[in-house]
């Protein structure tokens, strides 16, 4: 089952209304039985058969035979037991890095957990863990396939607790407990848990490959995608149900705030917090700062926070600035860039210009459609199901105190310190590379540009690159402003230069000027549309023009929807696609044939066609359709035992090493069966690279 098949099946089930169909549950039950029967049955056979044999031999006084066969018997039983144990050991990597919390560590947290658990009548938690991810989740580990109940583990991410208010965090917890409680359907809840179990098991086996578990891996590589596709609609229904149950006890508004805040803090961490932490790699050769401790302070921080510069590095920066300055505009010393400041999350929601940014983020998050990579619906759909405004909702309130501060108390600082230490160790190699790049790479790039400027026609793009290099090297605004202006003098329609100047103007509060530059950027390059609408909405918000802001945001949504649709179409090859002749010359086809000649023995036929995306015909690209050479028997066998036919997998692996000389983007499509929809749809007349030899 490939990704397209996976999505097709889910759409089919959605159309059938499978989530609400009682009969569909029997089908899922059959899938569950199949999984258990295969794994459990084999394990039982391994354990029981030798045991029965031993008993039979002992009973019939063939003790010598038992003695002779003892090695084989023990090995077989041991293998069966190892299979059983495999379910217990399938922990993923992140679970190994978490730390367990006890009631004495965080009494307030456990009190909240008890309250929610009681309200939702959820089973008791076996353990509570905390890790450094911005997430929260409950994992059910079935004991003998839920016959003996399950082990329920709650894992909380410290950054999530540090950025949400107590109420918002409670809503998140309630959502997770709702999955456990099963009030919205015991069966759906079990299926939800089993999806995790099978996936974890497959991942575990892929990570610990051996010949002994090969038969299980092969089975799971076929079973898990099919099971996931079949149960996807149930999983999604569980998410909606969990939201509703959470809202019932927390309140719709708080639940919606929690969802929005969760998305927004994610953006804040990704776009504001972590980039500024890593920005310090230019001055510090080793990981600097205590990000998790900083997060503790930043929720309610009174002042913007910056990491102090190490004295000797500050000196280097000073002398380096002297060495690289140019005679004209660049005579000033490099200066501390204000953008290094990290504004506290609460301030972010309160200051006018950052609040505008947060509003845009929220809108962007709301514009993301529901996908198929995850059972979680998109933010917009979840808000809608709660009956909330999804066009321009108010930003969630920041709250007085973070959930971590309230629920963990002094333990928060202890945990933050531990995670800081762990983070410093983990990130050290990457940090060192970044430090080297920032200190050598960007200076080299700047010097390259200066050399080019001295001898070559300096294009608008070169001036723009120079401005970027100057910004990276923390040159004064006047210097890179001048470079950007030069770029526009040479090419008044240089969109990136307009965009950069617009951003500078926006930062300085020159809103009119910023709007003009953004307008010019969009005129020159339609690819700037998403950013354009975003920034114009920001400007309108800051000017207090709510209606204009709303219009820009809606335009932004429409544009993004179009992009999403196009991207989805670009990523998939489907029988419903529009194909056109390749339009290549004979020589180009001959070259392709030569380039693909190394895998010709593995291929029975190959064609090349152009795919014309419905959403944007200009983005047409080539599809090289290949059919692996395989016998009828192997083809039949492959359909039963693998997610992808091994010949097709081998074909993909070989294609990885081949780069085709095509004047544009291309991708491969390996057809696994002659009746493959794409294969039937592709126009074959004159499109062949290799013809069938049969």
């Amino acid at each position: 089952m490939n990704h397209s098949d996976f999505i097709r099946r889910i759409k089919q089930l959605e159309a059938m209304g499978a989530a609400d169909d009682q009969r569909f549950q029997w089908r899922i039950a059959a899938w569950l039985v199949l999984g258990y029967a295969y794994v459990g049955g084999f394990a039982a056979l391994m354990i029981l058969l030798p045991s029965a044999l031993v008993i039979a031999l002992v009973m019939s006084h063939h003790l010598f035979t038992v003695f002779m066969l003892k090695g084989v018997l023990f090995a077989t039983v041991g293998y069966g037991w190892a299979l059983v144990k495999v379910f217990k050991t399938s922990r993923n990597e992140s679970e190994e890095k978490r730390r367990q919390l006890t009631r004495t560590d965080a009494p307030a947290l456990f009190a909240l957990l008890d309250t929610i658990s009681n309200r939702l009548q959820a089973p008791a938690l076996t353990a509570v863990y905390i890790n450094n991810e911005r997430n929260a989740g409950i994992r059910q580990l079935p004991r003998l396939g839920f016959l003996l109940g399950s082990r329920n583990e709650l894992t909380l991410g410290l950054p999530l607790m540090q950025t949400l208010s107590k109420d918002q965090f409670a809503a998140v917890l309630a959502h997770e407990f709702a999955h456990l409680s099963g009030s919205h359907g015991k069966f759906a809840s079990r299926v939800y848990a089993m999806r995790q179990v099978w996936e974890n098991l497959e991942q575990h086996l892929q990570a610990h490959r051996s010949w002994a578990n090969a038969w299980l891996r092969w089975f799971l590589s076929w079973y898990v995608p099919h099971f996931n596709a079949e149960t996807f609609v149930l999983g999604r229904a569980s998410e909606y149900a969990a939201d509703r149950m959470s809202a019932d006890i927390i309140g719709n508004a708080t639940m919606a705030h929690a969802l929005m805040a969760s998305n927004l803090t994610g953006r804040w961490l990704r776009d504001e917090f972590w980039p500024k932490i890593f920005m310090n790699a230019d001055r510090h050769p080793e990981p600097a700062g205590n990000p998790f401790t900083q997060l503790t302070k930043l929720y309610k921080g009174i002042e913007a926070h910056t990491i102090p510069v190490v004295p000797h590095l500050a000196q280097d920066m000073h002398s380096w600035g002297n060495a690289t300055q140019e005679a004209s505009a660049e005579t000033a010393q490099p200066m501390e860039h204000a953008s290094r400041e990290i504004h506290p999350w609460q301030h972010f929601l309160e200051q006018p210009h950052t609040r505008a940014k947060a509003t845009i983020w929220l809108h962007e998050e709301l514009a993301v459609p529901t996908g198929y990579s995850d059972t979680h619906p998109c933010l917009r759909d979840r808000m809608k199901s709660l009956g909330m405004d999804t066009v321009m909702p108010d930003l969630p309130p920041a709250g007085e105190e973070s959930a971590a501060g309230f629920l963990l108390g002094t333990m928060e600082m202890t945990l933050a310190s531990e995670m800081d230490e762990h983070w410093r160790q983990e990130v050290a190699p990457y940090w060192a590379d970044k430090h080297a790049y920032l200190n050598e790479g960007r200076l080299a790039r700047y010097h390259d540009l200066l050399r080019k400027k001295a001898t070559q026609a300096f294009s608008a793009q070169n001036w723009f690159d120079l401005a970027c290099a100057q910004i990276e090297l923390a040159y004064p605004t006047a210097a890179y402003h001048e470079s950007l202006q030069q770029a526009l003098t040479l090419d008044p329609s240089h969109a990136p230069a307009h965009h950069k100047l617009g951003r500078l103007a926006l930062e300085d509060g020159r809103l009119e000027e910023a709007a003009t530059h953004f307008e010019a950027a969009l005129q020159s390059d339609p690819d700037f549309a998403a950013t354009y609408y975003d920034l114009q909405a920001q400007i309108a918000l800051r000017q207090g023009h709510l209606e204009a802001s709303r219009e820009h945001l809606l335009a932004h949504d429409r544009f993004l929807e179009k992009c999403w649709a196009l991207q989805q179409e670009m990523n998939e090859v489907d029988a419903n696609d529009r194909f056109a002749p390749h339009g290549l010359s004979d020589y180009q086809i001959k070259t392709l044939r030569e380039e693909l000649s190394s895998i010709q023995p593995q291929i029975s036929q190959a064609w090349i066609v152009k795919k014309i995306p419905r959403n944007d015909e200009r983005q047409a690209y080539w599809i090289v359709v290949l059919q692996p050479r395989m016998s009828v028997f192997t083809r039949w066998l492959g359909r039963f035992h693998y997610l992808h036919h091994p010949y097709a997998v081998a074909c993909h692996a070989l294609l990885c090493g081949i780069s085709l000389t095509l004047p544009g983007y291309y991708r491969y499509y390996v057809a696994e069966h002659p009746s493959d929809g794409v294969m039937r749809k592709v126009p074959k007349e004159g499109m062949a690279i290799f013809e069938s030899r049969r």
Partner: protein
Amino acid sequence: MWLREQRYEALEQLFAEKRVRWMAGDVFCSQGYNWACSLYTLFDPMETPALQDKLALLKNWVQACPQSYHAHMLLGELWTEIAGEIRGYGWASTVTSDRWIGARLARDISCIYLLKAITLDDSPGMAYRSLMKIASYLHEPEWLVDLFKGETPLPYDIPSDPDERAVWDAGVDHLRQYGGELMSFPKQLPAGLPPREPHEFEDGRLYWLQRAMQINPRDYGTLHTAVYYLYPRWFGDHEQMAAFINGPLCAALSEAERGGLWWVKEQDILDDYPDLDDTDDIDAHLRLWKKLLARPLLPHVRFSVLGSYAKFLGYIGCNEESYEQFAIAAELGQASNMAGTYFNPDVLEQLAASVIKDGFPDTRQVLYRLTIAAVPRNEDPWQLALAATGHQFGLWGFPRQTEGVDALIARAVELIKAGEGPRYMGYNLPELMWQGHHLKAAEWLANQLARHDETESMLCLRDIYNNALYPHTPPEICNQPLSEQWLRRAAALGLTRAKLSLVRHVLLADGYDVEDRQKFEEARQLLLDILEAGDESARRDLFYLLTLSGSEEQQTWAHDTLVPFLLHDEDPATQQGLAQYLAYIYENGKGAPISYALASAWAKRALEFDENDGLSRHIFQSSTRFTCAGMLSRIHDWIGKKELKKSLAASKVYAPEGFEA
């Protein structure tokens, strides 16, 4: 000439005069300052002195005129050339460490002389250009960069490790081969050189280029060199080249003058001919040619572009268009009447093949006009020989006139012997005429050249008289003894190809089993000579000859000395022959002890190349068959097994891969 005659003042006078015009901005005048300051001009190509001799002449000049800028500059330039010679002209990865060391040492000397030259003149533009070239080609020396950093250069760090020391010594030997010695580095930079900006340290060529352009903003020669060193092979790219030509340094040139730089750029693409079935690339080439020709170009540049374009058109089979472009070039050459409007033979050969060989009607006498334009230069033997033949027979538009023909032939031969002109032209030009059914002219030209001891033409005569060319030689011209006579003459004059041909086709025409001892000795001596001259192909013949016809001593020498080299020869024919002969040697003990096992193994190897090889099959089967002889051979091998293992371990005998005693 003046240099040899030590007329230094006259030389300086000449340079001074030419420099005045050059500084005034007349950088395109023929035989200007650029031309005068080149080593090629300084030494008459007819003298073709060795680099050592050139070095001695320039050193004399420096000694006689220690304040001469030009003397130091040209000496520095010569050391750059020597550095290139030591490095060799192969890919960087093929250059051995000792050669790199030698080249760097020569480069250091060059830099020292060039820095000295800078101190001796107010406008040392040429010295700056040379330093730019060094920075582009061999990289600047560390010590020079140290001087710019204000640091005192450290002396050479001679390695103490014996292996590294041996490589170092070999590098120094390369330098000494040209009379060079390690020199001490200057302690400071010439006064007046501005300091380097931080971004100028990474790539020194920028610094020197800017200095040169400050001296003369219209220094076309420097710009030309700079564009060349932006070729991808020098780690540049075409985009950079275009940006450079449109950049600030070329701004002082007119659009037409910049056309010459565009031509340099496009040559990198246009000289790389596409496959004939790659119509897209051919179209791309044609578009590029047309774009280039649509640019404003100086007449001599346009002339050159037209020639190359015509050659390309000929390559893709557009003969009429090709001829048309040659005709336009000929018109332009005559109209502009400037020096430099001539084609090198590689361009003209296309037209010659079309007119002479294929009989394309040259209605506008283009071949004649273009050839005759190059004749007055008296520098290219191909055109001189063509003109001589044309005049002699009144062919290809040349007026019939015998006067001066001998002089043209004599000069052509002189130039060929000096290494000028296309390789093998003594053979190829008469052959071209022969293929165009101009039999008399071909025979005449080959004879004329041969009479002046031009050896390639002797080979052509050998083929003409031997009926080895197409069209077939008329019976009245065929002359086997004469053919052999010319071949022997070429061989006697030292032409390796002739020697090899003499051995293979005359002396050993009946095989390597030679009974006539005189013939054997002659063949052996010739093969040894060829081998000594560095032609490896003779080794195989010598091995066969000595194995089949040599004395016992010679057979042993052939086995012990020649086989190790032949084993590393990747030519399948050599490997097949070697396997056959070794099977024969080990079966019969010709130069090595008898070992039926080895003989059988080599015979088996020979059969892998040719399963119908009767001799190898016989050897293979005789030792494996259950016959009396087969049993005896196995007993023999069993007795000598220990000895064979020893010999194999000591590499006294050779076994194919996978052989186990």
